[in-house]
């Protein structure tokens, strides 16, 4: 009997998953088993909104977050799930400090970018939504918005627009002050996932002084239908791929995730989405 109940439960779960379909438009795998296992569908869902936060002093500038996003966008350009003609990235920002030559290092061709500069958050939200509404026919691969405040309703609108069009939206959160950051950091949103990318001290290269391989601490803070976790990775390479840091790669994935699980319970509660 328990076996029957179990199987019907599994079938029910499958059905629910099918109805929710977080990965209806396909996923973009990271190519790192530990990360992909934590995400529903085995990768970053297309047709969804993903939030990327900075950490510490970088919350204001989002440099690491931009690097992480650039890696994702670079892989998106060559991913089989994205139609061949779709390569343009609409990147909306308030402060035009994005530097083309720096993006090349993560495999993102700046020629693919269309920068939109707007002065207010609500304008940027509008641009992101317009981009998502334009659909795949517009040749867009992704929309990136750098905003400070993401109200629940606005986030929900974006999520719905993304689900309809199948375009991925990356929201880079940039807060202008510590007070804004404190107010916004833990506020829930309608995004499918929330990431926090922090720079880690670089890995030493044998017999070489100076800065080694840049590393990030990538935290998946919230994910609907997945498993939050924290991983230390090497920064995206010229093809946009991150890789697990050497000391982590030696271990099996599960203990790494356990070890990485944040100790405070608030992170755990948010897992439910």
């Amino acid at each position, binding site marked *: 009997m328990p076996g029957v109940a179990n199987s019907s439960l599994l079938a029910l779960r499958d059905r629910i998953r099918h109805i929710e379909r977080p990965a209806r438009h396909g996923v973009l795998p990271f190519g790192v088993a530990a990360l992909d296992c934590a995400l529903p569908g085995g990768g970053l869902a297309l047709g969804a909104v993903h939030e990327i936060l900075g950490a510490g002093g970088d919350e204001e500038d989002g440099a690491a977050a931009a690097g992480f996003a650039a890696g994702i966008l670079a892989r998106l350009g060559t991913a089989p799930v994205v139609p061949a003609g779709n390569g343009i990235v609409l990147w909306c920002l308030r402060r035009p400090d994005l530097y083309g030559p720096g993006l090349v290092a993560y495999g993102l061709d700046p020629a693919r970018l269309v920068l939109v500069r*707007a002065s207010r958050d609500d304008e940027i939200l509008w641009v992101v939504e317009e981009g998502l509404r334009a659909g795949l026919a517009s040749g867009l691969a992704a929309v990136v918005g750098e905003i400070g405040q993401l109200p629940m309703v606005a986030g929900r609108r974006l999520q719905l627009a993304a689900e309809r069009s199948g375009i991925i939206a990356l929201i880079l959160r940039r807060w202008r002050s510590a007070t804004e950051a404190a107010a916004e950091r833990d506020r829930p949103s309608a995004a499918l996932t929330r990431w926090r990318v922090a720079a880690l001290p670089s890995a030493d290269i044998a017999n070489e002084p*100076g800065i080694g391989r840049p590393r990030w601490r990538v935290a998946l803070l919230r994910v609907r239908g997945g498993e939050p976790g924290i991983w230390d990775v090497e920064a995206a390479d010229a093809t946009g791929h991150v890789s697990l840091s050497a000391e982590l790669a030696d271990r099996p994935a599960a203990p790494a995730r356990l070890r990485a699980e944040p100790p405070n319970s608030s992170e755990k509660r948010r897992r439910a989405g």
Partner: protein
Amino acid sequence: MPSLPTHLKNGDVPAEEAPFATISTAGGRRLIAAVNPAAAAAGLAPGMKLADALSFQPGLATAAAEPAADAAALDRLAEWCGRYSPWTAPDGAPGDVGGVKIEITGCAHLWGGEAALAADLARRLLRQNIAHRIAVAGSLGAAWALARFAACAKEPSQPVLPGPGEERAALAALPVEALRLDPVTAAGLRRVGLKRIGELTAMPRDALARRFGEAVARRLDQAFGDLPEPLSPLGEAPSRRVRLSFAEPIADPADLARAAERLADDLVVRLAREGMGARRLDLAFHRIDGRVEHIRLGTARPSRDPQHLASLLAARLETIDPGLGVEDMILAVFAVEPLAPEQMALDGRLDMAASGIAPLIDRLGARLGLDALRHIEPHESHIPERASRCAPIDKGESRKNREKRRLGSPSPPPGAERFGVRWGIPGRSSAPTSPSHAFGAGPSLSPLKGGEGIIGGRGKPPRPVRLFTPPEPIEASWLLPDDPPFRFTWRRRAHRVRRADGPERIAEEWWIEVGTMAPMVTDAIRDYYRVEDAEGRRFWLFRAGLPGAPPPRWFVHGLFA
């Protein structure tokens, strides 16, 4: 008949029953500047002294004349007359009665003939309480003369419409002032007994020119249409125009949007026939109170997609105040470009212009301005802020020009269009130096490892993802002249440097004009260091100026991911 202008004339004073006049002050005397019909009937005329006027019209209401406001009103009226023809212009010499010139060649049939057009114009002007006189004639000069001098005798608001053969006769009967002569010349003609235009035509032309100047003969020829006189229209004349009139004025936004759609449809049919696409559009809303509201917009590339155009217009509809109602909408195209049925990218590269993104760009540009949309372009330069530029999104010609410029530049790298080469980071510094110091106490320092830090850096030093313009000054502490700082304070936060790469020396490009580095950094030489603090954040710092006196200054120029 080369042109068929009509001429309407309005005193621009309220046409109420009571006598009314505007007053201007000249040399301490107060003179009447303009009168309304009631005052004119009472015998008042512009140029009279106010005191005289009041002596036999004590109840005269007066107001100060405002020539600037009158001129503006005349401009508005000329714009409103755009409903009849795209070629309209205000005609108001200072001190003269204002008028509006309308070129109706080829337009009259749309209204059922010249008489019907004039009647419609008269009716609408009357509704706005504008006293007017209308004349239609074969030349600008004749219309001017007839409107001002022929209609006086008849019912003032009755349009003057001489038949094809009657124009000469009608003109001949008018006084010489009707020839648009300056008062001195007109007075001179009168002194010798030439009072009517008909008397002038009989005179030998060269004698007339010798005696009274070239102007008389020229004006005479212009009045009779022997000398062409083009009308320079108010603003730019559109290249294509479609118009929609409503039996009842509409004000509902949904109706306006539907009308805009219909106009876009009509326009697209014409554009498609000619193989053109619209680049610049103007949708004018003629309100019943005589005001005209505009939506002006541009497109990123030629377009003749009716849905696209209609959505662009609809997005801006909320800026339009329909007032009491809109009776006419005119969609005009000011710039067109050939639009082939389809476009293809020639090289495998993503071509923004050819992809389907143009409608989106237009939509964003319509709200934020096309200027807000940028493209990152590589540029051959060692100066970081110049190596990558935010250029406006490609627009037809500008792209071609840029292409030309790039080809004309001294050293266009072959295959520069290809990704990778195109976005190659200028690695050579103008004065490449890479001294290496490893010292125990301070941060460990290495010479540039050819971008080994970032995987795949093709032998080039890495560049940040965020670049600050202008660079942000920091307070730095360092030990040896060529060392990176071991500690610095940026945005009121202290950072302790753990690791560093550098320096990479970037000097002013002396072959370009001097002082083009960031305005606040005047020192021509910068030494760049990539440093990592205790948290792991990676900064791009530079020292401006050489070590010594005055002490060099330090800046954060960018952030690495």
